[in-house]
């Protein structure tokens, strides 16, 4: 286990190095540079050149890369070419917001998904099952921007209620934070729920067919005990897998929900950076997301061993 952990953490180095090269190259291959995007179609060529020079973008690419990477190794993510702000504090601040949104979203999703997923599996082909399956189909196929827009407009039209516009940290004021995050988190939660519900249903259906369940039934266990005591743990590996993947995606990719509800999270920060060709912001942001993604995956792998002692590394 210990050596496995060391190996996994060590493998982060080449992964992050590869990502850094990839994101740097791709970003600089994309047409358009920060200065001309800032200045738009009424810029003079000298103005564009002067601005690029002041941002250090007139240097050869390899020098720019080395400068960036040495900075990162010293914990310096550089400054945004647009706003002149330090990037690392921004990333951390915005990541904290995205994380709260994700946690709220995932909780809402799981609270919906797991009980209803189990219910629809143990009552397969009943009315409940049909309702759950229709819900999962909708949740998966309706894009989250549509769900979000409907929630936003619906609540403002019919209840004249609009979530507070300034983001509040959960640990500063939980009630205000709840109000801020409720709509965006529900938007995310519906999508999360749909995926997890589907997986829960199929995992349970499969487990309920296993011999040990039949044995448990034959021994006269109550239905509750069979489901929670025997089936639940044995069905959780695929559920945890999909849940873990979702957390990873949500942390990096809650862009649309953040954009829709003006939540200044990490996804929005990176997206804005892409529009503006703010190279340091996008590079730093993507690298950070990659790191989080890899760590979440590592964590999921460790949870496997706890759920199923047969899994050993």
């Amino acid at each position, binding site marked *: 286990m210990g050596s496995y952990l060391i190996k996994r953490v060590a493998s982060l180095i080449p992964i992050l190095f590869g990502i850094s090269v990839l994101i740097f190259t791709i970003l600089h291959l994309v047409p358009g540079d920060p200065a001309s995007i800032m200045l738009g179609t009424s810029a003079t060529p*000298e103005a564009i050149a002067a601005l690029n020079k002041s941002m250090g973008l007139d240097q050869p690419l390899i020098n720019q890369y080395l400068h960036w990477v040495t900075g990162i190794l010293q914990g310096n993510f550089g400054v945004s070419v647009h706003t002149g702000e330090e990037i690392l504090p921004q990333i951390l601040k915005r990541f904290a917001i995205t994380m709260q949104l994700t946690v709220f979203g995932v909780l809402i999703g799981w609270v919906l998904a797991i009980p209803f997923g189990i219910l629809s599996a143990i009552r397969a082909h009943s009315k409940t099952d049909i309702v759950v399956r229709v819900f999962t189909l909708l949740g998966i196929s309706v894009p989250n921007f549509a769900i979000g827009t409907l929630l936003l407009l619906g609540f403002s039209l019919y209840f004249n209620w609009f979530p507070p516009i300034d983001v509040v940290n959960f640990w500063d004021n939980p009630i205000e934070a709840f109000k801020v995050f409720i709509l965006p988190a529900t938007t995310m939660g519906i999508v999360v729920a749909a995926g997890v519900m589907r997986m829960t249903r199929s995992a349970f259906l499969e487990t309920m067919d296993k011999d040990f369940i039949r044995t448990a039934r034959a021994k006269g266990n109550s239905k509750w005990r069979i489901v929670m005591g025997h089936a639940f743990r044995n069905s959780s590996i695929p559920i945890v897998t999909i849940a873990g993947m979702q957390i990873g995606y949500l942390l990096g990719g809650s862009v649309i929900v953040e954009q829709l509800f003006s939540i200044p999270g990490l996804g929005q920060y990176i997206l804005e950076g892409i529009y503006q060709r703010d190279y340091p912001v996008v590079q730093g942001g993507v690298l950070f997301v990659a790191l989080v993604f890899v760590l979440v995956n590592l964590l999921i792998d460790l949870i496997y061993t706890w759920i199923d002692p047969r899994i050993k590394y």
Partner: protein
Amino acid sequence: MKKRVLAGFFLSLSLVLSACSGGGTAPAEQGKSAEGQAKTELIVAAEQEPVGYDPHKVPAASSVRVYALIYDSLTKLDENMNIIPNLAEKWEIAPDGKTVTMFLQKGVKFHNGKDMTANDVKFSFERIMNPDTGSIAKSYFSSVEAIEVKDPTTVVFKLKNADASFVANTASAYASIVPAGSTDLTKEAIGTGPFKMEKSESGQYVLLKKNADYFNKELPKVESIKFQIMKDEAERLAAIRSGKVDISMVSADSAKLLEGKPGVQIKNYQSLEYSYLGMNVNKKPFDNPKVREAISYAVDRNQIIQTVWKGEATLTGPIAPALTNSALDPATYPTYKTDVEKAKQLLAEAGYPNGFETQIETAATYPDMVETAQVIQQQLKAIGINAKINQLEWGNYIDTWKSKDMNLMVGRNTSGVDADRSMRFFFSTTGSANVWNYSNPAYDELVQKALTTVDQAERKKLYDQAQSMLVADAPNLFLTSPKNYYAVRDNIDFTPSAAGEIYSLIKTSIK
């Protein structure tokens, strides 16, 4: 059991909702804060985040709307687009037009308490003109030879040649007066303007507080302005309807949706922008004036107004119609009458009886540009021109625009506040924004002469001639000038105009 669970669920949902709305106020009371005091903070929805506050470097509209409230320029525009005094209380232009003397307001202070003097003016303009600054306004002041400080409140601009657009250009927010000795204005913003920078929370809002020492004692009328960043239109709509924001710019489509809704008014004005179809006059077959003329006859501009702008736009020439003093009535242009037969005939004379294949570049970022390109594509089909539309991401679009190598391009320009910008900057042979390779010595001479003519009536005649010449030569087809829309809460006295949101915001009060 099931019913009870469901009932419980809805009960808790409604409890949550009532808890959520409990902190807010009923729409009727939104003019008052929770303590019952009159509301003094104006909340404006901003669709983009500001990208720094250096008025000489940053042209992004999201930044201008903020720094133009913090800084002042020497002159400004009133709602009828006339130049009126601002930091300069008056100015004198020498008879030869080569010397402009600006007399500054006395007793104006920067937000840090320092007096604003002629030295600050000299510093600001020299900073703009310094190529290392990379200022967007540098080309506005290319005629300036020297700036002399006569006394603390008098500045003399010596010009290389008479420049009739000079005073109008000093009204630009890009020509804001900054404190002498300023180096990094990216984050710090200290001006003489009606508002001071109070707080800026990246990704969330920018809060400005009233400058109690503002030289115009009557203004501003609100204690603070908060620009709330809301990138999504649906969110802005919901926020204005529920009274969370007071003012929001909205699209024409959303304006229609909001019309007649309680608590909200829609206000609009004719913008200074116009849309165009640009043609690269170096590229075959667009190098042939007959082809360009044919395209002009084939395009039905009124259909673009109806389809793209739902009737809420007007025909335009090279100068947007909002600049009433300079713009020529589009009815005077012969090629504005749609005539498909004539277009076909012209195309045949040019040697393309069966038309040709080509490509229209446009920006995917702006739906109106894409729709305009689609309407034009249909219209050109009628004369045998098959155009493919290439939707580009904004950065890519700018690159293509700069390349001077496109065939056809649909875009939008801002006319600027003086005819010189609409004409010389975009279409003279050496104009920085002339990416169409248009070069006509007769045109260059006209616009240069107009620039150095001080007599306004004479100047108008020259620009009239230049506009007709440009429309006949057609390096661009000038299409439509749209309206801009604002949704405003009922208790807010806000009247937008082409002179700019800023001018209107300073005068805005809360009823």
